[in-house]
Structures are given as C-alpha cells and as structure tokens.
C-alpha cells in the first residue's frame, strides 16, 4: 500500500544520556516528563557534571493539547479532538506519573527547569535558547510525535544534526498532515483518511514525512473514483 515502508518516517528510541555532549537541552510534553527524568537519573548515576549544564523546558501533563489547536473544520478533526480529550481523561495514571516526574526533575541540581502552558510558548523559548546555545549542546525531546516534529523543525533551522538530537515518542500518535494539493496542514489527525480542512479533499495519510514541514503527506484518495473511499479507521492513537 501507499503508506508503509517509507524511509522518511521518523524512528524513535528510548532516550539515553549522551555523555559526549557538554550542554543538554531537554523538551518534554506530558508523559515525556517520565522519559526525561529517566535520562536525568542516568546522568546523576554516572556522576556527570552535565546536570549543572542541563536546561529543561516542560509542558506539564494534561495542561495542553499536543499541538496548536486547529479549528475543527471537519468531522474527522472534530472526532479526533474529542478522542484526544477522551484519551486524556482515561490516562489519569499517566498524568499522575508525569506529575511525580516533574516534581523530581524540579528537585534536581539543574541549570534551569521551566514550565509552559502550551506548545507555542515552549517552542518560542526553545528557539531563543538555541540562538544563545554553544556547540556541544545535545537536544532531547520526549512527547507525542507531532510535538517532536515541531521541535525538530526548529532544531533543523539551527543546523542540529542527527548526532545531536535524540527523541522518544510517548503519548498520542496523532499526526500533522500536510495536504499536498492545497498546502494546508491538518492537526491531530488520528485516522488513515482525513478530510483536508483547506480544500475539503479526502486525503490518504502517508508515512512519507517532511522534517521541514514537520508533517506527514496527505494525498487525495478518491481522485480516480470520486466519493469511493476505503474504510476510514482510527489508526494513529
């Protein structure tokens, strides 16, 4: 099928501390805080002086949606948003674990820990921190894939390469989907097929990923037989 075996699909791995880095910059959203705590404890156990050169920027679990809120322009998007809320409600244990992790992170001897109410405000601070950062900095990102993608896009502007960035995917797999026809990006897409909020075309969500756009490509699915859609399924949960 058109959606699998695509090389550009990002691959994530559990975060590990990079002892070769001199400065460490960590971004976490929601349960990503648990992953960051694990890395920080690894650094602490290794008696790494790196903790004092580590800056952590967080969005506390449950405090924000995964990405800038988009108007629920389509049924699918509305359903996706509702499902996000439902998932958030059902994930109280995860939220509690993230809350605990945040407390522990705040007690560590770090350079700085800051919390933000939403993704845009965290990313704005991230950008200004990068502008003042030195070579030798490692970036760690933990959270939902769309959050990782938005952070990576900014990191790319600062010419951070693969060997300077580590990312662990936690939480929702909901995707940012770029309509290749009208160039609108749909947020929080959880279904294999989605209606484009820009041009109303039905888009097949591919694994073809753009780091520059921080989005998966959406391609019109019923171009040859208008109205004939494969079953719409919730696959990115």
């Amino acid at each position, binding site marked *: 099928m058109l959606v699998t075996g695509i090389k550009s699909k990002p691959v994530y791995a559990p975060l590990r501390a990079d002892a*070769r*880095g*001199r*400065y460490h910059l960590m971004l976490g959203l929601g349960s990503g805080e648990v992953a960051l705590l694990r890395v920080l404890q690894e650094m602490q156990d290794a008696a790494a002086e790196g903790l004092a050169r580590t800056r952590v920027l967080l969005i506390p679990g449950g405090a924000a949606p995964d990405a800038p809120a988009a108007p629920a322009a389509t049924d699918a998007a509305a359903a996706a948003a509702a499902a996000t809320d439902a998932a958030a409600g059902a994930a109280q244990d995860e939220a509690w674990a993230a809350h605990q992790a945040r407390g522990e992170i705040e007690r560590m001897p770090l350079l700085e820990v800051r919390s933000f109410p939403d993704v845009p405000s965290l990313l704005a601070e991230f950008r200004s921190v*990068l502008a003042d*950062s*030195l*070579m*030798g*900095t*490692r970036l760690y990102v933990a959270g939902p894939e769309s959050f990782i993608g938005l952070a990576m896009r900014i990191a790319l502007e*600062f*010419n*951070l*390469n*693969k*060997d*300077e960035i580590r990312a662990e995917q936690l939480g929702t797999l909901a995707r940012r989907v770029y309509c290749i026809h009208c160039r609108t990006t749909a947020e929080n897409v959880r279904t294999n097929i989605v209606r484009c909020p820009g041009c109303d075309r039905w888009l097949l969500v591919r694994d073809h990923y753009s780091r520059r756009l921080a989005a998966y490509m959406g391609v019109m699915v019923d171009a040859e037989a208008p109205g004939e859609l494969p079953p719409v399924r919730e696959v990115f949960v």
Partner: protein
Amino acid sequence: MSGEQTLDVEVSAIEQLTPLIKHFTLAPVGGGAMPAFSGGSHIVVVMRGGARVHRNPYSLLSSPLELGTYQIGVRRMEESRGGSHFMHDQVAVGTRLEIAHPVNLFPLDKIARKHVLIAGGIGITPFMAQLEDLHHAGVPYELHYGVRSPEHAAFLPRLREHEGERLHMYYDSESQGIDFDGLLSNQPLGTHVYVCGPAGLINRVTATAQSWGWPDSHIHWEQFSAPPVGDAFEVFLARSKVAVHVPPDRSLMESIEAAGVEVPYLCRGGVCGFCQTRVLELDGEILHNDHYLAEADRGKFIMPCVSRARCKSLVLDL
C-alpha cells in the same frame, strides 16, 4: 579515476610562492573551460616522463567561478617519493600533464550557520577555493592559518586583502599558537569546523572539539597521506593471476598499476575509500596507513594507495 579518464592540461604559469611552495596554473589543451568544481575539491595529477609515473592528489585553489584554468599549490616534500620533486624540478611553463576530474571529499556544509577554517602550512590550499564560495554565501566564517614564519605564509597578501579581520595568522617563529580551547569552546550552535594540515594539527583540532562536545558531523578534516616507504614485499592478484613485486619506494597501488592492472581510485591519499580491496590470504601483517577503514575491517581489507604489508604472502581480490 578508474579507467583513467583524464584531461590534458598545459602548465601556463608557475610562481614560487614560498621557499617550499610552488603555484601552478593549468590550462586545458586546446582551450575551452575546465569542468566545474566546488571548494574543497582535489584533482590527481598524472606525471609521466620521469623514470616512472607519479599520481599525486592536489587541492584546487582557484575560484570555482573561474573555470578557464585550474590552480594548485605544491609543497616540496623532504621525503618525496618523487612526485613533488617532479613538479618542482621537471615541470616548466608549457609542460603537458594529465589530470583526473575534480572530486570533493572536503566540502563545506551547505546549511551550516558558521564555518571555522583551520589551516596548517600547505593545508591552506583547499580553503582558498572554499573562501571564494564563502564570499558569496553570506554565512559568518573565520580562517585560522598557522605557518612556520611569515616567509612561509602562502597567499598572505591575497588573504589579508580579502579576509580582513576574519583572518587570524599564527607564526611558529614568533611562538604563536592557536588557542584551540578558546576557539572551540565558544562557537554558536550550528558551527562547523574544518581542518587541513599536518596530522598533529588535525588530531589536536578533532580531539579538542570532541572534548567540548562537538559531534562528529560538525568536524571535517582532510589530509592526503603520501604513500610511506617501507620494506619490499610480494603480492598475488587472484583475479588477474599476476604476481607483483612492491619495491620499498613504490606504493602497492603504483606497483599494481605498473603490472598493468587497474585499481579504482579517487584520492590516492587514504581518504576516499574508493580503492578498498579485499584481502583473500595473508601470512604476515598489513601496515594500514589509511584514514578510511574501520578497525573491524582492517585485515579483511587493504587500501592499496597508502598501505603496505610485512608478509611472507599476500593475496588480493583484484
């Protein structure tokens, strides 16, 4: 290159730049333009006419925007196997040479936010062409250039004129050294460092950058090893069914070529990996002089351009 697709050039000018470095201008025989290249590229000059054929890599130092001629700088090596002496002593204006097409194993990173260039001696040559690219790129850069003494500083007037405050000179004769820690501890994110020169300089820059947390993808270096001399040895080429004698002052690759067997190459300096050759049998040890093979591959493979063997027998997959 494999198949030796060379270009015929004629030496149109020679200038003694420093006591050790000569500057050669190469023009295409029959006119026209040279192939396009990017800053950091090298050519291999094929020198015939002496007792034997020499093939040495030299960085292109002319502007990538001016393709009427190529320019190279050749340092006279004390322990030359003949190539640099041939260029210095045998080549005159009007001499015809063959060159292999340019190859870039030392390119500038296209999306870097800043470039730090570090040259030692003749290591300035690849940067001369890269600087031409940088003048148009609009990205900050600085050049740190160390030489023995002012008289050994090739291209100094040109660099002073064009680079101004971006040029930092260091003279051994005045006990000036690069402050590597100061230089590499304080660079903005997205900086790339490039170093070309003696092995000691390259090792120092790489180690210092790594100690300040620089990842490998931001550290670039180029050093063409001249093939070292050594004891003579014998090698058998399994596919060609040819026995080859490698004398002390000739490289394995040169000896194989002299026996009429072609080995693919790009750099002839142990860098590009193009001539990697499988070792089928070995009774003895290989003296790996390349900068290419991973530790795990050493012994399984050999780079004939710079490496030798001390062995009773060696069989190669050639």
